[in-house]
């Protein structure tokens, strides 16, 4: 019956919306996302319904490029620490702009361990003996955080698609961190 069909539709999208809220709340609680992500969601409207998807996609592409650059630079005989610093700074900026908080923090840590100037002036310590080792560890950490948030964001955006397909409206998020 017609009424039954509509009821099921509403039920279906309600369940999805609840899932979505629970999923996103967890991401905020775990610090994977911060308030900046909500700011981005506020910029979405009927004339630009895919705004968040577009920005996040750009972030994935740009981050992959930067991570590849970083791996390549660290692989070289004479590591260019200034180049490393510039790349990490870029990634810090873009992750901050979309609210990928843990990626941003990993970048901040990376820069404090591998500051181009400090590497040259450190006293006798682990960093001087193995600065590229230190940087490799930091890079590992950044990659890990990036892949994690990428995974989660893809899942979140998939949920959004499902909600819209089911005739529902994507709920507005609140920062519960």
């Amino acid at each position, binding site marked *: 019956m017609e009424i039954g069909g509509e009821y099921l539709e509403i039920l279906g999208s309600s369940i999805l919306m609840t899932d979505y809220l629970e999923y996103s709340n967890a991401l905020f609680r775990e610090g994977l996302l911060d308030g*900046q992500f909500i*700011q*981005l969601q*506020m*910029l979405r*409207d*009927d*004339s*630009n319904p895919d*705004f968040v998807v*577009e*920005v996040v996609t*750009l*972030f994935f592409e*740009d981050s992959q490029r930067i991570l590849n650059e970083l791996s390549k630079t660290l692989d070289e005989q004479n590591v260019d620490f200034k180049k490393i610093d*510039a790349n990490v*700074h*870029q990634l*810090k*900026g*873009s992750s*901050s*702009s*979309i*609210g990928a908080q843990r990626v941003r923090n990993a970048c*901040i840590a990376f820069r404090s361990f591998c500051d181009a*100037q400090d590497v040259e002036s450190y006293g006798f310590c682990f960093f001087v003996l193995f600065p590229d080792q230190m940087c490799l560890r930091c890079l590992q950490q950044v990659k890990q955080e990036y892949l994690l948030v990428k995974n989660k964001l893809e899942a979140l955006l998939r949920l959004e698609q499902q909600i819209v397909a089911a005739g529902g409206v994507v709920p507005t998020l609140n920062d519960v961190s």
Partner: protein
Amino acid sequence: MAVEDIGSGCSSSGDQEFHVLAVDDSIIDRKVIERLLKISCCKVTAVDSGSRALQYLGIDGERSSLEFDELKVNLIITDYSMPGMTGYELLKKIKGSTKLRQIPVVIMSSENILARIDRCLEEGAEDFLMKPVQLSDVERLRDFMLRGGEEERELGRKRKTPDDSCDCRPLRKRPTPLATACSSTFRALEEPVIVHES
């Protein structure tokens, strides 16, 4: 403007749209700032470097002054840390040009360095915004600029001289570094304040 645009009420007045030139080397930040500005009813041109910004503004002599007037830029908003020409260097070039120095320039930075903020404001920047820039920052900026713009037009009409022969600054209150920092204190407190830039 699309009819579906949400209601900050992009009502079309008789005047031209407020045209902002956004400069940022990050493709993500360009997309975000462009959206923020469009939602705030501004016309936006986004470029990826200081040199491209200067090209657009016609400072390298490729454009005739007639073309420049048609592309009138009401505000320049630029990132500070960019490869090649920094936002600060771009600011200096703009303020050093008789043709362009009347255009207000706003600097954006992810780093809360007081010496940097001071330097930019001293060089003539209108405001200094902490990144990531939010809708409230852009709306506040636009309102501030539009009020100042009206005053400027009033002054221009009374004086009856061409704008760029006049050395006067518009009668606007310049934000103090502290006032500007406070407007995004919430975000500024997340990172340590560095007093002296190395």
